[in-house]
């Protein structure tokens, strides 16, 4: 009687802690994020994080891994200094197995730390061309800027008869990379760079810049900036008499730009991705994203979903083979497998860890991005 009572009492006390046999157990895998969660680029942080959150939801719902996943956010404000501090913490304190990064300057700042610690860093938002091959542990799930400009320039020169291009670019590695690309690629496409206007990252007023741009008499103005600043540039140029074609790269795929009346007619490049059609994974992503965040997904959401799903796929394979999930084993698994089912279709990685992706040319019309080419 006594033993039965003890058994019942013990069972009752233990009940809340009991888990079904299939449940995940052990310390969670830590996925670190190095995104701007405050400051002028905070909109990106929210967008990037939501993609990763949905991927974790799917990984856990599908019981892909034996251990749970914890998302650990470090606010970089898109600044290299803060990013280095955040990366040190993720590597040394949180022992993150996988990190998600964005912004060219941030990515370049944290890459040596991740390289030394053999921690995988996956970029789904930054497009500086020198991010390719930054480290064996630095991978890109987004096409880089040189691929975007090379897709855009033939369209501009052939379809829109653009001969004279002015560039307004932010003074950071991304802006410098695009300046270099335009200098090299415009002549090859029968056009010329008639003016390049560098702006600090903190600049807020663009009336004077617009006056200088008008003076250059361009057929098109290429904007190489990001965050709140890119909307300010568009508005500043349009409000101050620059009526010529505006064009840019994938950073323009933000709601704040799309809903800006002055962005009407803006031409920009982005990864080609069809959320309405395509495979089951893409449809599931689009449906669940809409349901969870009450808005349609963007390319950035998909990129960071893919960046996080990659962790699930690689770690699943390593767990099933009885190995330890760490940077080295995941890099080996990446190079061995190469092809992955991701949102938007099959993603294939090269030796440097760059994913190939088709690029399309889009235009904002009536607050919607419409495909022009690609």
């Amino acid at each position, binding site marked *: 009687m006594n033993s039965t009572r003890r058994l019942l009492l013990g069972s009752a006390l233990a009940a809340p802690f009991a888990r079904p046999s299939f449940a995940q157990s052990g310390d969670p895998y830590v996925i670190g994020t190095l995104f701007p969660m405050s400051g002028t680029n905070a909109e990106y942080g929210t967008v990037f994080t939501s993609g990763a959150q949905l991927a974790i939801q799917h990984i856990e719902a599908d019981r892909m891994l034996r251990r749970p996943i914890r998302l650990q956010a470090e606010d970089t404000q898109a600044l290299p200094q803060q990013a280095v501090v955040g990366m040190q913490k993720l590597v040394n304190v949180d022992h993150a197995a996988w990190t998600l990064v964005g912004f060219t300057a941030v990515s370049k700042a944290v890459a040596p730390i991740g390289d030394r610690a053999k921690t995988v860093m996956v970029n789904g938002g930054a497009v500086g061309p020198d991010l390719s091959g930054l480290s064996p542990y630095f991978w890109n799930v987004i096409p880089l800027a040189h691929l975007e400009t090379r897709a855009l320039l033939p369209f501009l020169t052939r379809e829109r008869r653009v001969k004279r291009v002015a560039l307004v670019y932010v003074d950071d590695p991304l802006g410098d990379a695009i300046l270099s690309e335009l200098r090299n690629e415009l002549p090859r496409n029968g056009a010329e760079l008639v003016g390049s206007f560098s*702006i600090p990252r903190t600049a807020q007023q663009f009336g*004077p810049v617009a006056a200088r741009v008008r003076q250059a008499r361009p057929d098109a103005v290429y904007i190489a900036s990001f965050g709140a600043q890119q909307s*300010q540039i568009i508005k500043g140029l349009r*409000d*101050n008499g620059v009526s010529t074609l505006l064009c840019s790269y994938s950073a323009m795929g933000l709601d704040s730009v799309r809903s800006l*009346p002055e962005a009407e007619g803006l031409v920009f490049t982005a990864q080609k991705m069809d959320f309405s059609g395509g495979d089951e994974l893409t449809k599931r992503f689009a449906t669940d994203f809409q349901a969870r965040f009450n808005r349609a997904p963007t390319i950035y959401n998909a990129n960071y979903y893919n960046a996080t799903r990659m962790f699930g796929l690689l770690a699943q394979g390593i767990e099933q083979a009885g190995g330890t999930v760490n940077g080295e084993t995941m890099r080996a698994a990446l190079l061995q497998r190469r092809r992955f089912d991701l949102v938007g279709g099959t993603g294939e990685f090269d030796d440097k860890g760059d994913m190939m992706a088709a690029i399309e040319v889009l235009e904002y019309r009536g607050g919607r991005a419409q495909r022009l080419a690609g």
Partner: protein
Amino acid sequence: MIELQLLLGGLQNGALYALTAAGFALIFGATKVFHVAHGATFTLAGYVFIGAWNAGWHPALGVLAAMAAAVAFGIAMERLVYRPIGRHEGGFFTVFVAAFGVSIVVQNVIAMIAGRGFANVDSPLATATEVMPDLFLAPVFWISIVAAVAMFLALTIFLSRHPAGVALRALAQNADLLRAYGLSSGKLSVLAFALGSVLAAPAAILTAMTSGINEAIGNHVMLISMAATIVGGVGSLRGAALAGLLLGVAESVVLVFLDTQWAEGASFMVLFAFILFRPSGMFGAAVAR
């Protein structure tokens, strides 16, 4: 014509800088409180106006709401943050950290409510038209100039004619003597915060119309305000206003000679020049050592 275009653009920005800087200088001059959260006042006023605009309110109501929010925030800072710190003999650093902390809280609360990133008012008043060959001006240019002049005139009349205004100037010069005459320095401090904060509202509204704002814009506003206060002469209202105008013009006109990269740098070159050659600023009194 580019020179004239840049000069006029600089005057427009400078008028807005002048308003914000004068508000900061008024508060600092009268109360000696280094009100770092003045940038948050600016941000709050801008977002209140955008919210009212998006809600379909009449613009005049939106302006009033923005001004009311700025004044309420300024008074709340004085009563709930600075005064309790002052009671406990809090030094400059305590005040600075407290105000800076409040700025960060405001920034994050705005981001949570209004969303992160760019926000603006889509008004035809901000769209420039070609008034002469290669010279573009928007109606908001005239509105900025008129708003700045009107606010300064009203403030000058208040400070020189109204008993409360005269008392406020007395507070700036000698708070102990003021108390000896039986006047309440606490009430006058509240008045200084209310007046200084309301000056930021028109600047915030016009910035929301022209370049747009974001939740972190307060940092930039504070940098300009501090620079203008030093250039104008610490404690001098007209100095801060003129310096704000000068900084706005400098960062625009510098593009005649230098690359666009130097626009913001021009403000700080002016600041360094004053620190080196006239540390007391335009209208500040030299201190004998």
